[in-house]
């Protein structure tokens, strides 16, 4: 216990005030990509080609966010991700309700990991 407490202190002291400066920097560089386009582009009419591409982005993003990451939710168990993906897609085709898809997939995988 005592020893752990000491390393903990030491770990903190190493960064000390720097932790908060790092946090400030992280906060800024995270906020800028979020806020800049939304505020800068307000009221601006973009060329049709550009807005056409921008309208495509949500669906392309979803494709990239899902695959292949969904297969690796449990890094050492590809089957787990495969089952999860299969269940999620099946539920989404059947119900088109996000809540059902989320809770249903969690439910099936919970049962699966209890059994195996």
């Amino acid at each position, binding site marked *: 216990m005592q020893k752990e407490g000491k*390393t903990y202190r030491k*770990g*903190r002291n190493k960064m000390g005030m720097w*932790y908060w400066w*790092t*946090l*400030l*920097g*992280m906060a800024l*560089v*995270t906020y800028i*990509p*979020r*806020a*800049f*386009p*939304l*505020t800068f*582009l*307000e009221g601006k009419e973009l060329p049709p*080609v550009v*807005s*056409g*591409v*921008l*309208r*495509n*982005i*949500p*669906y*392309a*993003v*979803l*494709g*990239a*966010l*899902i*695959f*292949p990451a*969904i297969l690796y*939710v*449990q890094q050492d168990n590809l089957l787990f*991700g495969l089952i*999860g*993906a299969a269940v*999620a897609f099946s*539920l*989404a085709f059947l119900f*088109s309700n*996000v*809540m059902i*898809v*989320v809770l249903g*997939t*969690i439910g099936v*995988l*919970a049962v*699966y*990991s*209890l059994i195996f």
Partner: protein
Amino acid sequence: MHLGGEHFVNKNSFFSGLKAGVSIAIGYFPVALTFGLLAKTTGLSIWEATAMSIFVYAGAAQYMSLTLISKGVDPILIVLNTFVVNIRHFLMTAALNEKMQSEKRWVKGIYAFGITDESFSVLATQKESKIATPFAFGVAVIAYSSWVIFTAVGHVIGANLPAFLQAAMSIALYAMFVGLLVPSMRGNRKVVMLALVAAVINGFFYWTGLLSTGWSILVATLVSSILIEVIYAKRGKNLPKGA
């Protein structure tokens, strides 16, 4: 205020935004809990850990920063890494701007803070052609609250969920993405192609290790969006304005 009836009221209120964001809150729960726990083992106090979730609010970047902090990496490199991981949000918020109701810049500057991969996905796939500001606030607030609160909870209890539940809940955010994507794919081949091409490109970068995750998602998204747009422009078939 309007005769548009239930439809109008529903889709424009803060409350319906909260409702639409519930699946994000569920998905963030295990991720934030684990972040709080890992932050504790990295040596961060509860204030330091929770402050990161309050002020930075970026899942992947926060996880990476823990690894970098524990290795004693130069703070400037930690900040640079955070920027690289989050650079894709330039693209997302530019796309989202096309769909958002016109609003004062400072108001947009506030809810912009709440735009993550997940809140972007929920907002951008709404069927309405324009999204009302209160709705965006609703989605942002519930997701953010879950992230911040469960970071603190994870640090305090210093333990994870039961293993089977932790494993099962790790699928939540991906299941949500699937649940948002599939209904839009119905009868819309362009949407199917957009997602498919981006997934294939992202998979290519993942397995070849040519790009890190943040860049890979950015490039895959951009290439797919442009490529499909060019193909469809040639055929004269494009997404309707609202889609």
